[in-house]
Each structure stands twice: as structure tokens, then as C-alpha cells.
């Protein structure tokens, strides 16, 4: 009998589910316990008990939503439903390039499986790849191949509803389906997005499309010296992205991306407040980078890749006043030169930038891919970071029709003045962005209500719809109260 082993309710267990990068000690979002099922039947049984006893559950895949609360629940005392033991890779189809996996499968797990089985399929991997493939896709995580809009590659979900009933989406609704991972929509309404960033179900299986290994790649790295270069660069890159000349998400990031990996802040500046521009320039000079850096990656048939590289050159080289230096790879060459995504947690170096017990939160509004707007956003954000004494770490990640402007606030968790100012900065940024017409694509548990409140068209009709659906599907309000600002009827008084 393993029951006791997988009900985790000691003080030490509870502490392991706190947000390790919280603003402060993280004890404002504690779990009262965690329970770790191993099968969908166990998930259903737990949900039945939760309904019977009216116990709220906070499902996590692997609990690595770092920078957004990790495994910590929105509502204090919620029981974490840790799906980490449901970690089976149920199917990988090399011919049709898809997989069916459980929520506990991590990026490293799937990568190792594909490598060990010599399956020529590439994953879309986020910057920090410690977490769950399913969890990342459900939070609308971002990768950097043509399959990098991870949510868009979901093809079929199995979901335990808040009343413990089991549903399969898409063509999975056919008992003997042969196309569950082939067609995303099914017959009639398609509900998959209802379970993304939501508290309307517990995803227990996910179909996901994987990228067939390309025949060739060409890659180049570009650094731009001046802050104002963002304007022309975003316009040119967004045009290439819209036309699918470049068909993957690009991280257009500032110099701190490099500096925070290879060094710590006190190497460059020991004073209070934000890094002054003089220190920033010293960093760039020393590391040989400019204000902005980005990578260009082209994937496909060699002839197509070569043709695309010529279009990219024609667009960028007149601005750069020099030739782009592409690295070319053909299938059969050493794979490490291909640009194939390899899971890594090196990006976590950023939390050590300030030293001490480091933490970080991400502020990530969505905006149009427009150079003038990006320049204005850069200036506004930089000024706000400096006003509150924080170093400005940013990237403008280009999607096909949008930018995810991911800004990271890094702090020493034990420095109360620093975490207090980070909290105020964050709320100020939410208000600033809402005034500009930009909403966040994803946020930390601490700010879910604040962000949800900015989606306020027609007297918050979106929230009223969300709550209507929530109350209909989850009458006892047991599933993730407060997730993304959506509170069940009985807990609406808990909204901040």
C-alpha cells in the first residue's frame, strides 16, 4: 500500500511546494498538503473526495512554473495535486510526428527518449526546460523553433473535469479514434483552449505535434549596438516573420541576457539602485555585445533555406552595413551544429544576478510587432525599472503577429526593500501596460487578480463569462480557486 507515501503533509513537504523564487519567503501562498496520484483513475478518485469534503485542489504538472509561482497555489491552504508521478510517454509516432504524454513528462525526459530511440523529431524547448512539456503548453509557454507556439501544437487532451468525469477532446471523443493526434478540432465546438491557463479541468494526457528533423538549417547571431536599433530591427524582423521567411519565434533581448549568465551584478556595479548606463556600457564593451542581440534560424530543405537566407540578407544587411555570417548545417552533419533544441536550465543563472537567495518574476505583456511601439515600450519600461531601482532585463519575443515582451525582475528574496519595490514596480507595470492597451499573456500567482482585472471590456464581461462557466462546471469550487483570476462562487471574497 503506497497511500501514505504519496500524501505529502509534513511541514517539510509543505515547504517544498512553496515558490522558491517568490517575492519574499513565499509563505503567503502555502499549500496545506500535496497528493501525488499515479493514474487517471486516482485523479478521478481524488476529485470525488475533494467534492465530497469541499477541499480545493491546485493541479501542477511538475511544479516548475518558475517566475510565475512554481507549484504554489493562488489561494493559501489549497492542496497541491502533484501530477509528477504520471510521467509516462505513452506514444511517439515517428511517421506522423506526434506524441501522447502524461503531465509529469519533463523536457529532459522526452528529449532523452527521442535521442535514445533515435527518433528524428525535434521538440520545442523553452528557455528554462526544467519543467513539464504538458504544463508548459498549458501555460502558453514559448519555444524557438517553427513549433514554438507550444499551445498551438496541442492535438487532443484527456481531461478530468471538476466533477471527476473524464473527457477526451477533438477526435478523441470517438471511443475508437484513429486520428486523435492528427486533427485538432473534432466535431462541433472545440474545447481544448478552455483547459489552457484555466481551472476548468485537470489535463491527464496531451497529444502534441513534434517537428520533423529538417534537412538543413542556417543560423546567424546578430548584435545591435544602440537602444534605438530596436525600431528598425523589429519592423524588418516582423515583416520576415509575417511572411514566414523566418518561421520561428525570435528572442530579441538586451545585454543582460548575456551578462546574467556569465557574471554577477557586483562584478560591474556595487551601488544602490538600477545599473547606470555607464555600467551597462562597460558590460557590453567587456562582453563584446550590443544593447540588443537576436538569433536568426532557418529550417527546411537546403534550397529553401538558402533562398530564405538571401531574403534575410536583403532585409537586414543594409541596416547592419555588413554581411551576416550564417552557420550552415545539413542532415548528416554533427547534430550539435544544427540548432536542434536541447533542454537546459542555464537560463536560471539569472536568479543569481543579485546574489543571496535569488528570485525572479516575469512581467510579460503582449503587443503588436511594430518598431515604433517597441521603442516606446522599451523607453517606458526602462524608465520604470530605473525609477524603482531594478536592473532592466527584457526581451521582445517575436511571434507571427505579436510580441511577448518578457521582462524579468530579479531580486534578493531576503532584501525586503528590494522585494517591496519589485512588487510595486510590477503593479505599476500592469497599470502602465493596460493604459497602452497591452495585457499580460501569463503572470505570477500573486498578480493574477490584478492582471485579470485589466481585461475589462464591457464591464468585465470576460470575467463574468469565466465565472459563469466555472460555477457550471465546478459547482463546489474545488479546482484551483483564483487561477488566472477566476474564482468559484464560494471563494469570490478571496479575490485581491
Amino acid at each position: 500500500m503506497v497511500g501514505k507515501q504519496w500524501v505529502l503533509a509534513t511541514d517539510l513537504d509543505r515547504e517544498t511546494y512553496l515558490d522558491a523564487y517568490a517575492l519574499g519567503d513565499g509563505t503567503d501562498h502555502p499549500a496545506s498538503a500535496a497528493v501525488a496520484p499515479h493514474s487517471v483513475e486516482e485523479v478521478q478518485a481524488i476529485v470525488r473526495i475533494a467534492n465530497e469534503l469541499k477541499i480545493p485542489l491546485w493541479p501542477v504538472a511538475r511544479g516548475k512554473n518558475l517566475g510565475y509561482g512554481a507549484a504554489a497555489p493562488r489561494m493559501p491552504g489549497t492542496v497541491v495535486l502533484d501530477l509528477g508521478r504520471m510521467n509516462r510517454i505513452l506514444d511517439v509516432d515517428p511517421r506522423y510526428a506526434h506524441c501522447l504524454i502524461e503531465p509529469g513528462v519533463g523536457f529532459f525526459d522526452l528529449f532523452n527518449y527521442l535521442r535514445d530511440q533515435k527518433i528524428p523529431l525535434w521538440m520545442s524547448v523553452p528557455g528554462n526546460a526544467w519543467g513539464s512539456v504538458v504544463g508548459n503548453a498549458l501555460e502558453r509557454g514559448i519555444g524557438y523553433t517553427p513549433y514554438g507556439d507550444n499551445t498551438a501544437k496541442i492535438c487532443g487532451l484527456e481531461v478530468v473535469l471538476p466533477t471527476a468525469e473524464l473527457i477526451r477532446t477533438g477526435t478523441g471523443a470517438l471511443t475508437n479514434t484513429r486520428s486523435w493526434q492528427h486533427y485538432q478540432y473534432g466535431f462541433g465546438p472545440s474545447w481544448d483552449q478552455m483547459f489552457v491557463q484555466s481551472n476548468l479541468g485537470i489535463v491527464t494526457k496531451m497529444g502534441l505535434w513534434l517537428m520533423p528533423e529538417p534537412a538543413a538549417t542556417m543560423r546567424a547571431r546578430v548584435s545591435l549596438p544602440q537602444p534605438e536599433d530596436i525600431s528598425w530591427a523589429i519592423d524588418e524582423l516582423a515583416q520576415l516573420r509575417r511572411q514566414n521567411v523566418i518561421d520561428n519565434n525570435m528572442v530579441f533581448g538586451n545585454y543582460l541576457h548575456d551578462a546574467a549568465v556569465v557574471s554577477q551584478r557586483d562584478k560591474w556595479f556595487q551601488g544602490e539602485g538600477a545599473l547606470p548606463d555607464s555600467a551597462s556600457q562597460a558590460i557590453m564593451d567587456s562582453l563584446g555585445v550590443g544593447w540588443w542581440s537576436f538569433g536568426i534560424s532557418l529550417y527546411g530543405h537546403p534550397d529553401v533555406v538558402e533562398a530564405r537566407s538571401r531574403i534575410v540578407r536583403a532585409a537586414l544587411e543594409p541596416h547592419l552595413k555588413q554581411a551576416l555570417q550564417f552557420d550552415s548545417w545539413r542532415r548528416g552533419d554533427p547534430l550539435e551544429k544544427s540548432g536542434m533544441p536541447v533542454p537546459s536550465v542555464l537560463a536560471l543563472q539569472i536568479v543569481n544576478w543579485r546574489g543571496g537567495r535569488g528570485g525572479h518574476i516575469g512581467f510579460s505583456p503582449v503587443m503588436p510587432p511594430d518598431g515604433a511601439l517597441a521603442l516606446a515600450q522599451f523607453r517606458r519600461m526602462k524608465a520604470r525599472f530605473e525609477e524603482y531601482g531594478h536592473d532592466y532585463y527584457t526581451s521582445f519575443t517575436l511571434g507571427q503577429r505579436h510580441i511577448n515582451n518578457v521582462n524579468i525582475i530579479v531580486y534578493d528574496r531576503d532584501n525586503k526593500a528590494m522585494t517591496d519595490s519589485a512588487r510595486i514596480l510590477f503593479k505599476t507595470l500592469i497599470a502602465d501596460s493596460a493604459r497602452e492597451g497591452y495585457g499580460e499573456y501569463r503572470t505570477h500567482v500573486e498578480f493574477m487578480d490584478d492582471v485579470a482585472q485589466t481585461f475589462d471590456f464591457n464591464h468585465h464581461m470576460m470575467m463574468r463569462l469565466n465565472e459563469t462557466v466555472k460555477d457550471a462546471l465546478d459547482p463546489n469550487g474545488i479546482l484551483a480557486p483564483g487561477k488566472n483570476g477566476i474564482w468559484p462562487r464560494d471563494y469570490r471574497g478571496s479575490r485581491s
Partner: protein
Amino acid sequence: MTVRRCYWAGALWAALTALCVHAEDKPAVVAANPGESLFLARCGLCHLEHDTGTIMLGRRLGADHALLTERADLRADYVRAIVRQGRNSMPALTRVEVNDTDLDAIASYLSHAKPKHPDSK
């Protein structure tokens, strides 16, 4: 640090301990040294050469103390405490991520690791 004990844990404990009946984690990879195998699987993403935990430890403690597998000063109870409580930028790991049996094996392995650097303590 202690998390405040809250509300539903007692009721849930009783209900669930009878529930999770067959759930046995997949067995650890069999190797000459199971602790080493588990270390590579559970800790290796951060604590191999050039990885993020190794870099952070190197900055804080010096290059000779960066790689855990080359440390001679790690006691098993210290390893267990750090894994469960975290330290600086390292998050605590739950018993779902590393169960107690596996953690014991990892801690034992690291506490018996041999230094490669002659001046490592």
C-alpha cells in the same frame, strides 16, 4: 521557516491514504552504483560540468567546490537537508521529484565521492 499549517490536510490525509493503492514509481535505473545513476538522472541537469548549479557553486565557493561529484566535504545528512530545503538559488525538491529512498542513495553517493583536484577538501 515553517509554513503555517492549514485547513484541509487532516481530512485529506485520512481519505487519500486508502486511495493510492498500486502506485509504485518506475524502478530506478540499475547501475553499478545506483546512487550515481540517480544523481545523474535527478541532479545532473544542474550539477554536471558547465551547468547552472555548478556555475553558481563555483562563484560562491570557488572552482574546487563547484562540481558535487568532486567534493570530499559533503555529508549525507547535509545533502538530504539541502535537497529538501533548498539553498540560495536552488529550489527545494519534493518527495515526488526525488523520493526518500532515492535521496538516501544520492546522498550516500555524494558523501563517498572522490576529489579529482588534489587540493580539494
